[in-house]
């Protein structure tokens, strides 16, 4: 269970990215985070695994205070929390296999891993993860030889290596075609349903939110302005989050969802 309490983030340049944000996520939820570009979605997700240190407030993960953790303890928390990114964040020149294995670094021997030594078990695990996302045949390719959708699947496989209980996904489909977007989100859905992994995913398209999320929170200028079920997210509520100029667009552009102009 994840609890976010009064989270505030002020960047050194004075930007207030999050203002007193509090919410809870029960185990097994698929939580969508929506909001305009710049509303603080990435900052929120990054505060949860402490890629960004919040200015005030706490993040509790299974009753452990993430915000107070340091060094070894923080790394142990992080390895339970997988993360995937809009830009995939793969090491482009390394092989797909190495990229996936690197998801296991938090568990691997700190010294042997430096010379790329992994156990047979870890290798099998990496193969299994790749198989699960359907690209085992690409294991020896360089990451930058893969298409965007395939790269994101490598990103998921890398996160799977952590055997995570929580998955943070920062706009995982914003750089992908509509068809690929669905395929990636279906993998997340599968992890959520079958493995019971809690998912926090920032999304932009109302139809995707309706289709995959079990709950939605909305951010506007760093403040929590919506917290409810996808069905409660009416066009009116959506405009409250996205502003009045926002127009309804679907992920494939056909006109039943909502998308803001800013993207």
């Amino acid at each position, binding site marked *: 269970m994840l609890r976010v309490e009064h989270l505030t983030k002020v960047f050194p340049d004075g930007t207030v990215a999050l203002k007193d944000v509090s919410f809870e996520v029960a185990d097994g939820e698929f939580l969508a985070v929506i909001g305009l570009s710049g509303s603080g979605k990435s900052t929120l997700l990054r505060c949860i695994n402490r890629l960004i240190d919040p200015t005030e407030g706490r993040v509790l993960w299974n009753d452990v205070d993430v915000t107070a953790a340091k060094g070894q303890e923080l790394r142990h928390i992080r390895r339970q929390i997988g993360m995937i*990114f809009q830009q995939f964040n793969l*090491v482009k020149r390394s092989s797909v296999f190495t990229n996936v294995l*690197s998801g296991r670094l938090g568990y691997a021997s700190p010294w042997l891993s430096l010379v790329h030594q992994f156990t047979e078990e870890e290798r099998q695990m990496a193969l299994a993860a790749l198989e699960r996302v359907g690209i085992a045949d690409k294991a020896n390719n360089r990451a930058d030889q893969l298409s965007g959708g395939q790269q994101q699947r490598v990103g998921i496989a890398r996160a799977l290596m952590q055997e995570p209980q929580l998955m943070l996904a920062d706009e995982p489909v914003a750089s992908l075609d509509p068809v690929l977007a669905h395929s990636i989100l279906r993998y997340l859905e599968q992890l959520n349903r079958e493995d019971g992994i809690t998912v926090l995913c920032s999304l932009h398209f109302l139809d995707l939110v309706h289709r995959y999320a079990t709950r939605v929170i909305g951010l506007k200028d760093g403040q929590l302005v919506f917290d409810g079920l996808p069905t409660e997210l009416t066009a009116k509520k959506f405009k409250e989050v996205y502003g009045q100029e926002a127009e309804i667009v679907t992920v494939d552009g056909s006109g039943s969802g909502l998308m803001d102009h800013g993207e």
Partner: protein
Amino acid sequence: MSASDKKQDPTLPAHRHLPPWQAALFSLVVPGSGQFVVGRRQRGVGLLLALIILSVLILWQGATALFAAVAIIWAWNIWDAWQLAGDHAMRLEVPVLLAAFVVYGVGIAATEIRPARFISGWPSVQPYLTALTQPELMEHPTKDIVGQVPIQIPCITPLPQPSKPASQNPKVTVNTRCAKVGDTITVTGDGFFPNFNGEMIWVNPIGDEQHVLENGRPMKFTTDAHGHFQVKIAVPLAVPVTSLPKPGETQTHLIRAEQHKPYGPLQPTRTLRLVLNKIGETIALAFIATILGMIFALPVSFLAARNLMGGNAVTRAIYYTVRTILNIVRSIETLMWAIVFAVWVGLGPFDGTLALFFHTIAALGKLYSEAIENIDPGPIEALRATGANGAQVVIYAVLPQFMPAFASFTLYRWDINLRMSTVIGLVSDAGIGFLIIQWIRLNRFNAMATAILAIVLGVAILDYVSAWLRHRIIVGNPTNAGRTLRSYVVTGVLIIGFIAAFIWSWNVAEINLVTFVEGAPAGVRMIRDFMTPDMFTRPTKKEAVDAVLPVPCGSGVGTPSAVSGSRVNLSLSCGNVGDKLTVIGHDLPPNTHVSVRWVFADGSYLRVKKDCCTTDSSGHLRLETKIHPLMAVNPKAGRAKPGKVEITWKEVIGPPHLSKAFNMVVNLSLVTLLMALIATTLGSAFAIPLSFFAARNIMGESVLGRTTYATFRTIFNLWRSVEPMILALVCAAWVGVGPFAGVMALAINNVPNLGKLFSETIEDIDNGPVEALMATGANKMQTLVFAIVPQLVPRFLAFILYQWDINIRMSTVIGYVGGGGIGQQFRLWVGLNQYADAGMAVWAIVAMVWSMDYISARSREKLV
């Protein structure tokens, strides 16, 4: 995957079932053959070639101990064949590391690296380094008063008059006319500056000066209010023991009292004024060469642009010719051109300008032509479609695309020319380098230091200016918007400044077309010799036949000599100076170049006729002349030996073989390549760790981090502005003349150059993967190894290759100033007028630079 890759597929059925022991046996006998037969052809050929090359290298340097490594690679190759036959591919680390070990071992031997010389040579380089902290910048002008009095040492009787006079005003006296070493004497002076101090100088009979010492320090005297002083001094041993007077003789020494009274404000030293003057010349040469080079490169670049010249066979032929010439000219360093043009127009600024100019045309011609090739035809088509005319298309679609590249390449070249111009004086009398090398010869280290510091500062400032200009030209003002009055004023000032600078530079560069035209024959002859390198020589024996010719008649008798039937007949058996004489050679080798000469009574000789002669097909030779005046012998001198007429030629006695010069060139080329390799390796080894301190993202935003970053960046920039050629001068003083000094100089120069490139690379890395790995719970070291290193390695390698490329070019010239390698020999050959041999060195350099260019371009393509 290309077709050739598929051929090497180890799973090809034809090769699949070779038993491992058979493959191993193949590889035991011929390395690589086992790999070859199981289908890994590239690997097999590579192994064989590598082993051959390594062995040749080892034998070349006689470093036979390294054969141990070759043996291990051989053994590995057998094992590898065995494994491959069993469909197991082994990793290549072991043989690659061993091969590197051998190459570096040979390299260290060939470049004569002796770390012990760092210590043994330290005393000789120390004055250079201390001088850097004491440049000669400012001084007060002084009014000087100097008085002297002679004294004779030792005393003899009678005492002769001293051989040097005393000064009258001021007046210096001494209480005795003679003394012996160690005596205390009293010196008085009058007519000096009152209440002011001065120093006592002892001048020995040869004129060497030394300070008179008091308690081991130079003695000072102080005058009273009337300009009078009196001091007691001990007579020093002022002459070396070997030059002491013989018993009963004496020598005249001088005691000199000097006062130097500063007056007026501080003013620049003579050294500083000279340096500033030459820095001006340096900048002028770079400037005029860049501008003229740019003007000439433009038309050339059209001829070298593929998209413009692709039309028909004729234009394509022009394209290839121009490209080839540009490439040849470019691969010969500017300094080499300076040596070539020195033969053409003589040493001086014009020589330097020509060298810079010539190289600039080639370099810019190539860059411009590539910019032209990169012009996007889209906008041109689009404008045509709107009905624009040709000029409009050029102005609105071609120029806007070409200008940024044009400006940036020209500025880039200006930066290079400026740096080159600082060192061109090392081979010619052009620019600041000339002062440096002169002062080093005179041991005037403080003056040298002044010049070096001036270069560092000057280059750094001009770099800054060109960065500003670049920004202004390339980034600024893309449209007419934003053109304010101020920008017009700035532009106007720039244009006027530019014209003034051009006129001034033209004068400083001493551009003189008359010299150029007059020198052309010498230059063309040299270039012709360059083009006909003598790779082969045939062993020859010198043969000679002669006939005796007493002048006048009866002045002596001698015996003619003949070789296997050849002989010389003269139309006269004796004669007088000026008599007509016909020289006839019989049975000489047919169609052979021979030389006919007078051999005078004293044995010296002179050609009868220049460029003479060739025998006909039957071995005959006939030459009409008049008896040379020097043939006359004095009949009164008695038994004089008479002069002779001699015909000499060279008899070929064996098959042609590679000339000695050719062997030297091959040898030195290898040394040069290895010098560059080792220097690059050393430079990178130091640059990699240092570069992290100059990377903003690594140093962070803390005060300490920002200061460290700024400090390292500044040091890199200042350090970079000292050219390797100048470093080589200092290194040669430190570790001795030779390739070691060259390696050191290059390595020292590579550290800041690579450091800067590396740190910029580090700043450019994609932070995404770093973040992703941190999110998985990886620690800092793991993040470094898995997310940062894989991003850096290929880019670093690309820069290292690029630097190696530059180093090869540099090491072809670093020998001019004591850095060893092929440059040293080239300069020697040009100095000896052996242009054919020098030409061979040039071709070797062109070949080296080309192959390196090719290799590094290909590898960089793969890496990035």
